[in-house]
């Protein structure tokens, strides 16, 4: 048993399956297709169980908070209130019975999603519009040449991407001057920098994949052996 507890075998599996996955991209033979289909179907099924894990990690945090009664633990109760209500609604399912199809119309379960989840989540990031306005005035400063270039580009893009720039441009007889300036920034410097970043990040990703395959990086397996 202790052999199975060690990392040796999992790391061998990582290497073996990784090598097959790597090779599959270069082999046109039907065997490679069958392999891909088998593996991806397998991950689709496993993905369902992985979602249970995700749910656990969400609840775990709040359970711990309530148990330890840390600061603001009372609010964590509302997490379980929300979850409880949704689960009850889902099981009751407008009287049709748990987990069965309701063919037409909205159920109370949909109602909970539409009128609690959607407005809360949609609003929370829109608050940032206000904070951005405030930060625009208070803290976004051209602290040095670099930051100055950043702000100038930002101002051009912010102006060039809204219809008012064409209206203003029309006053001067060149409606698309700001749009063109924005297009230049996006397709010139922005494209170049983003391409540089993509190339750099991809090399990093390759190196990371290699470290995983060779067992140099093994933190995802958890435990210290």
């Amino acid at each position, binding site marked *: 048993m202790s052999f199975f507890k060690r*990392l040796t075998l*999992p790391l061998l599996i*990582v290497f073996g*399956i990784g*090598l097959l996955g790597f090779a599959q*991209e270069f082999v046109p033979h039907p065997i490679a297709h069958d392999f891909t289909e088998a593996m991806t*179907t*397998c*991950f689709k099924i*496993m*993905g*369902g169980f992985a979602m249970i894990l995700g*749910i*656990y990690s*969400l609840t775990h945090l709040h359970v711990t908070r309530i148990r330890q009664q840390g600061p603001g633990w009372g609010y964590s109760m*509302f*997490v379980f209130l*929300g*979850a409880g*209500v949704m*689960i009850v609604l*889902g099981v009751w399912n407008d009287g049709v019975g748990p987990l069965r199809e309701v063919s037409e119309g*909205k159920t109370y*379960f949909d109602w*909970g*999603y539409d*009128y*609690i*989840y959607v*407005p*809360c*989540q*949609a*609003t*929370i990031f*829109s608050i*940032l*519009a206000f904070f951005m306005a405030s930060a625009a005035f208070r803290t976004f400063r051209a602290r040095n040449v670099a930051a100055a270039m950043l*702000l100038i*580009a*930002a101002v*051009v*893009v912010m102006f060039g*991407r*809204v219809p008012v720039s064409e209206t203003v441009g029309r006053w001067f007889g060149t409606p698309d001057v700001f749009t063109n300036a924005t297009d230049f920034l996006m397709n*010139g*410097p922005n*494209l*170049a*920098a983003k391409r*540089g970043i993509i*190339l*750099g990040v991809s090399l990093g*990703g390759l190196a990371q994949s290699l470290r*995983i*395959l060779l067992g140099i990086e093994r933190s*995802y*397996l*958890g*435990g210290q052996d």
Partner: protein
Amino acid sequence: MTTPQNKSNKKTSSVEMAVLAILAVVFLVVSLLAQFIVKDADGHYYFTTGADLRGSLGVILAAGLTLVMYSFLYRDNALFKIAENLYVGVALGYMVITITWREALRPEVYDKFFNAPTWGAFREALLYRSVPVILGVLLITRLSRKHGWISRYSYALIIGYGAGVGIPLTTHSFILKQLYAGVAPLQDAIVGKTSPALFSWPWFADVAYPVFLTALVVVGTVAVLFYFFYSIEHKRTGRTFSQVGIFFLMVSFGASFGYTVMGRVSLLIGRVQFLLYEWLKIPK
């Protein structure tokens, strides 16, 4: 100095409570008026719950939650925290019911084993699906401190495959394709265009500008790569060139900045549209 947060530890004052109560009453009155009072053809107003009472109440709740969320602008407060945690909970409940069961476990496990249309289909499921199901169940052992090691085998499969396939795919899409697009001869920018007279306006627009843009992208890409190059000290020419890289990065961050602002403002507009059109029922 007043930021929204620096009062967060103060107790709610009685003035604040009074204002809150007034606001709540105003909100309810406005909601009821907007949702349930309808004008008929003769210009008379009358009260009706409408065809969709559930929907109207939902809109009122949604509008209330939206406004509570915005109270964070004033300061971090209990109502905001309740709403924030409530929505996390609702998301959780939603995931438990619909997603995990309806979109994952039912189609992949229940339908195939317990609801198999024929005996042959069941046999097939047993042959080809029992291993993935067992591996999936093993994933869950990660929650246990004692048996967590079992889940390693499932993770080894997922992560190993992802890393293996990822190498050629990343090379193909993000390195070779990007590189190939980036090394076109400068003349490619003007292929298929007629050449107007030198230094005329159309020449600048159709020939000089596209070629300049292509050259700029080449220089920029190399300079940015050089900025992220750590194996030599950036001195003299190197320093200048990495400064060029910074400038390209900064302009691109500026573009991202402008777009991010645009995105957040759009979200605000989305909420305002909801409040105006659905809560207050202002005609579009």
